[in-house]
């Protein structure tokens, strides 16, 4: 740290004051959620939302998980997000491999088509997308939702992986090719291990995006037993909007996996944010 950046004591005090103020803005809503989610009854939540619980209990979590079926919603969210991660990592890496290492006539055009997907958000094509999914008989199925969510991540994933693959030398692959290895083997043995760092970024981005998605499930699912957490909690709120203690517990159940994913991989996260920040 250079001395231009060092602060006098008075300055340090002023700076700390502002930084703590914003930290409070960020932390207080989360803190209020945590303390209220542990309160033994609803009355205490309404009477004193800022006070600590008179008695700490897990009962709200248990009730939300079983009674409000957040356990079921959680399972659906997990199925969708993990499927999306696997599909996107596989499809985007094979596509990027062919586009970068085995270009053909028209591959530039194909890449441009993927870039159109980066530029124009799929939500705007809501009506035609709905028609296609309905035509394929995939409306109100997790399969349909998984395919739509995977496809919506493809452009950014292909973009990140092609950029990464272009930046690494192809010597290993050339050597494998000399030895008579076919593309399948080269992809599996050489390319996949090579692009692992970029693949981790793609996996993390697609997991968080898929877990947090509200709009696409809203469009493509109707039966509540298929709902992911985002829809499930909206449904719960529509019916029991006064049950704040369960809302707080449900919100914390919903945000736990992505916060954990972030804590485990904050570096990839910030990288993904600056590279893949192309699309929300």
């Amino acid at each position, binding site marked *: 740290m250079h001395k231009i950046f060092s602060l006098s004591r008075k300055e340090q005090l002023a700076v700390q004051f502002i930084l703590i103020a914003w930290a409070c803005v960020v932390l207080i809503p989360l803190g209020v959620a945590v303390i209220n989610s542990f309160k033994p009854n609803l009355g205490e939540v309404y009477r004193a939302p800022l006070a600590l619980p008179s008695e700490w209990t897990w009962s709200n979590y248990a009730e939300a998980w079983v009674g409000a079926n957040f356990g079921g919603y959680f399972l659906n969210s997990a199925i969708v997000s993990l499927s999306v991660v696997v599909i996107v990592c596989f499809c985007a890496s094979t596509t990027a491999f062919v586009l970068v290492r085995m270009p053909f006539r028209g591959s530039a055009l194909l890449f441009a088509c993927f870039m159109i997907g980066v530029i124009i958000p799929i939500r705007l094509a809501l009506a035609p997308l709905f028609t296609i999914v309905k035509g394929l008989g995939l409306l109100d199925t997790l399969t349909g939702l998984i395919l739509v969510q995977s496809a919506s991540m493809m452009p950014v994933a292909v973009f990140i992986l092609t950029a990464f693959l272009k930046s690494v030398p192809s010597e290993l692959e050339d050597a494998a090719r000399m030895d008579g290895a076919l593309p399948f083997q080269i992809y599996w043995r050489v390319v996949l291990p090579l692009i692992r760092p970029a693949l981790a970024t793609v996996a993390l981005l697609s997991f968080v995006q898929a877990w947090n998605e509200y709009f696409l499930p809203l469009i493509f699912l109707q039966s509540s037993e298929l709902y992911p957490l985002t829809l499930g909690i909206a449904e719960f709120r529509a019916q029991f909007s006064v049950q704040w203690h369960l809302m707080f517990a449900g919100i914390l159940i919903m945000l736990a996996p992505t916060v954990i994913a972030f804590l485990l991989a*904050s570096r990839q996260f910030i990288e993904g944010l600056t590279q893949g920040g192309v699309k929300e």
Partner: protein
Amino acid sequence: MAKMSYNRKANLQRIALLTPGVLLFGIFNFLPLVALLGLSLVDWPGVGSADFVGLENFRKLALEPYYRDQFVNALVQNIWMFVLIIGSMLLLGSLLALLLSFGTNGRGAYRAIYFLPYPLAGAAVAFLLDLMVQPRGAINTFFVKTLGWWDAPIGFLGDTDLALPTLAMFYAWHRMSFAIVLILSAIVGVRVILLEAAMLDGASRWRMLKAVVFPVLAPAFVLITVIVMVDVFNNADYTLLLMGPEAGPLRSTDVLGTFLFRTSFGGSATSVNVNFGMAAAIGLVTAILILPAALFLALKNLRKD
């Protein structure tokens, strides 16, 4: 002969490797985007037969009061929401990033805390902050009961003037760290040599900020503005989550995304004005509105390789 068969096999495998990704993207992403063009020219409630109506949907959007008023209202409110969001993100984001760039104690801890909201689901943020601003929520309780500064609780989301700015603040709370990270990396990227030269010239800290640091912030500002713009003009999650497709109170939180949703699926069960052709037209017009920003972003990213 063996060489030939290798090439043939390699070619077949190449096609096999390309197929899944292209089919997935093609069917569920590219085809719908292209189909927007065709669908915008028909009148079709989603079932039954579609009537070709040419540019009628666009004419209605521009001239027929029922659609025009909703469209103009949604567009104006969308712009207002964008201005509020981007204003607060750039101002606060720069201030916080600047303060974090000095030799501040506890920089790492602050950065971790500030980043906490970023990975949260929009639904979690919407419902969490909604519970904070409710008339019986934490904020009103604090200012009415604890401090006694307010006489009565403020119904932030029930007020036609306050609802949209409140939603904008929710968005800014959620995405502030994005602005902080980008601006901070721009500030840190300023070469120390440049700063030293400025210091040797006897420049004050403020002049140094003005001459050396602020100019490098411009690209970060543009990037943040463009990304947030593309998002705010197609993503209406906050309104949908908290206000529903009717975008209450009195459509005061309506944005282009909710207008599009209503036109495709109706606001309530009794809606009659459902038209996929019109929905496609709205999607297309919105795409054209954000196209300059999106194109700029794409070109910038491509040039980076």
